């Protein structure tokens, strides 16, 4: 592959992992900041729904980032903070929906699909 072809290929890569977190939000305590990032990465921005709250410019994302840091300083654990936000905004705010009655179909469907594809491919061979 020529060098310019490689360069053109680069255009197709999307460098979407851009942080929207602002300098004045960042905590001085490196460990707490690290934990804040961990929490942010699992929380969806409710306005820009394919972004987590670290990557989003929306007002609510900024407010949640600040809330996370305030709660960390207050000594809350990661799961306490995530639970608080989950409680207020529902499953929608989590990138990974919890397994419960309403989401059972969502979680089970890939396995069901694979099961039937498996049957479809291997049963026919037997008949032949």
């Amino acid at each position, binding site marked *: 592959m020529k060098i310019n072809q490689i360069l053109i290929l680069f255009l197709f890569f999307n460098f979407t992992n851009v942080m929207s977190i602002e300098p004045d939000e960042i905590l001085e305590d490196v460990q707490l900041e690290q934990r804040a990032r961990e929490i942010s990465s699992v929380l969806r921005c409710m306005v820009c729904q394919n972004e987590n709250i670290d990557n989003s410019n929306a*007002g*609510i994302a900024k407010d949640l980032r600040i809330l996370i840091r305030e709660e960390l300083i207050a000594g809350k654990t990661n799961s306490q903070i995530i639970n608080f936000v989950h409680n207020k*905004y529902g499953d929608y705010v989590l990138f990974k929906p919890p397994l419960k009655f309403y989401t059972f179909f969502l979680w089970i469907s890939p396995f069901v699909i694979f099961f039937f594809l498996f049957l479809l491919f291997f049963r026919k061979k037997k008949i032949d």
Partner: protein
Amino acid sequence: MRLYLVGLIFCVITILTFIIGLQKDPKKIPSNLINTSVPDFKLDHIGNGIENFNRTDLLEIDDVKIVNVFASWCPPCKIEHSQISKLSEKHFIFGINQKDKKNDLLNWLNKLGNPYQAIGSDTKGRASINWGVYGIPETFILDKHSKIRYKHVGPIMQRDLEEIKSIIRVLENED
């Protein structure tokens, strides 16, 4: 054969899920606080004779209440203002003023009128998070026992008014 029948049923359920799911507006996320009591929240005083309010004020009123989250910088809030005013003729409406400048708010209220029983200022957006607000305007309807029973996301338009009134009517007739 029976297995294929199960597969067929599975396919039908999946297709139906898509048909129903894709017609919904993904921007409108249902509130997780429906049927829960008023959350804890703290609002700042605005001054200039505007009454502030807190959780206990809502709990004390033995009637259906409306809580509207708004700001003068939010254009859709201006659109819904005349509907909010109409509702205020018969109902208690409380305003959570989000991240507004005091003078902007006062000008806005002077120009359009103040339909609110009381307005508290949510300068940092923390009270809004406690209410599960993710974009304004949002409007909550609380029943007589101050449980959140309904949330409207986005401006209340003329066409939404009938639905909102009928929800209020149902709540008013409850014990």
